[in-house]
């Protein structure tokens, strides 16, 4: 019944269009940064990595513990972040613009600071600073540029409850204030006299309402669970190509096979949105193994893959994640404290 309703909802919401100029979904996603970079969309159905708020709010009641996490998340290309900051805040000069657009490749950079508190049935998270930078060049002979530099502030509230035997439901309210510079234009326009219009900062307010569900057979040996979530559904103060309102339907499952030592979790996720062109693009698989202070994570889809580890010792955590796709790759680190 739940599955049928979820699929019907997807059919109603999703249609086939292209989205030139949109910030890629992996940068628009509002989940705890390190979790999403390591697991990708599989984080919506897995709960063995404990960092910040869970991707799927229904897990809050299932986890049922209190925790405060503070996390600093940084990606490679930090010099790009400085340039992006100058663009967003209107302090970039012609030399900065020339430097940014002299990089004829797909580039991205990300930095964020987040504090979150998880209680038994609710969770709250504040992300007072997040900087994102993304460029993509097309057609080398007459280059066209997809470019976004954005500064975000976000707040999340997750509410969750046990509904009936093995069934949990949750709701995430996510507010994001974003100030960004971005457009899809010809490279020659960037250096033209009226380029100021291209780089005029825009402000957008986004409010997401994201329901999630988990059905978990916790009394079975391998603890299988099935999860569903509607992510990215809500309203925006203005319409923009860079931050489109693009709901994603997520359906996933995971198991925890018994191992002699440690905790192993294997998950598969189906992630469908208007960006999804082929069914094979929608699937993602992930494996997590926790032993003592170390937790290893590997995840892959047809398009990209990532591998990383999290080191947790007493209250402190550090993490490293490698991510790659055909045109791009990155290294992401995370430092955190848990109280």
């Amino acid at each position, binding site marked *: 019944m739940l599955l049928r309703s979820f699929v019907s909802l997807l059919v109603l919401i999703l249609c086939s269009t292209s989205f030139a100029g949109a910030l890629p979904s992996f940068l628009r996603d509002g989940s705890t940064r390190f979790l999403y970079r390591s697991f990708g969309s599989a984080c919506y159905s897995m709960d063995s990595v404990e960092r910040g708020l869970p991707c799927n709010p229904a897990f809050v009641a299932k986890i049922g513990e*209190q925790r*405060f996490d*503070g996390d*600093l998340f*940084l990606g*490679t290309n930090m010099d790009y972040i400085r340039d992006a*900051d100058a663009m967003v805040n209107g302090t970039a000069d012609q030399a900065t613009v020339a430097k940014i657009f002299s990089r004829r490749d797909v580039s991205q950079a990300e*930095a964020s*600071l987040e*504090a979150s*508190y998880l*209680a038994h049935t609710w969770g*709250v998270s*504040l992300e*007072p*600073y997040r900087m994102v930078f993304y460029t993509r060049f097309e057609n080398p002979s007459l280059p066209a540029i997809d470019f976004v530099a954005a500064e975000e502030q976000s707040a999340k509230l997750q509410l969750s409850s046990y509904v009936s035997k093995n069934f949990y439901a949750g709701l995430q309210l996510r507010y994001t204030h974003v100030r960004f510079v971005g457009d899809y234009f010809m490279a020659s326009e960037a250096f033209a006299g009226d380029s100021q219009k291209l780089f005029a900062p825009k402000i957008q307010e986004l409010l997401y309402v994201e329901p999630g569900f988990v059905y978990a057979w916790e009394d079975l040996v391998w603890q299988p669970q099935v999860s569903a979530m509607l992510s990215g559904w809500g309203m925006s103060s203005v319409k923009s190509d860079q931050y489109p309102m693009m709901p994603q339907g997520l359906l996933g499952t995971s198991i925890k096979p018994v191992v002699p*030592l*440690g905790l192993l979790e294997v998950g598969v996720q189906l992630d469908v949105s208007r960006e999804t062109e082929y069914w094979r693009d929608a699937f993602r698989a992930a494996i997590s193994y926790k*032993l*003592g*202070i*170390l937790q290893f994570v590997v995840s892959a889809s047809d398009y990209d893959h990532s591998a990383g*580890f999290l*080191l*947790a*010792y*007493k*209250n*402190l955590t*550090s*993490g*490293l994640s490698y991510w790659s796709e055909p045109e791009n790759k990155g*290294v992401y*680190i995370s*430092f955190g*404290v*848990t*109280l």
Partner: protein
Amino acid sequence: MIRILLLLLFISTLAGSFAFAKDKDREDLEYKGLPNWSEFRGFVLEQQREDERLGLSYMISGGLAAVGGVVGYNLAEDPFSRSVYAITSTVGIAAIGLGASYYWTGNEYDSFYYALEHANISIQEKNAILKRYLEKERQWRENRRWIRVATHALIAVANFYSAAQEENSDVKSVFYFLGAANTVMAISYTF
């Protein structure tokens, strides 16, 4: 400027957390049962097995982290990865020591259990002593909890005061963030 301040804020929060440094895996180690000696014995023996398992996990993962950190440090090219690998290696060595401590020395209940288990007294007397021990221990936990509430509440007040006095909007927002984070932490310890 704001990024440097936010980084300083994060580091200060990190440093502040050392005041209450604890091991995540051992934080909830508390006997919540009745003051009944046979029930308590079962809890302690189960916990001893858990300590051995945890100790072994820490020693193995610590060894992996120590070796992997050195290898990763030498293979990595970017400074980000190298810094994380350096931390991993150092923490790995510390974790081996912590794991050995769990494996061979156990937890704080062990000494009390050992003293009473081998004492030549009746089971009723053991139950009575256990009752007094658990009362004292719960009182100690309660005091520690309220000290944490007061500490974080005071830090929050100090930061909100600083925010109210500060004229620079960037610095003001940092103080507000610190104040809000400590308020959340103070509230979290009241539950």
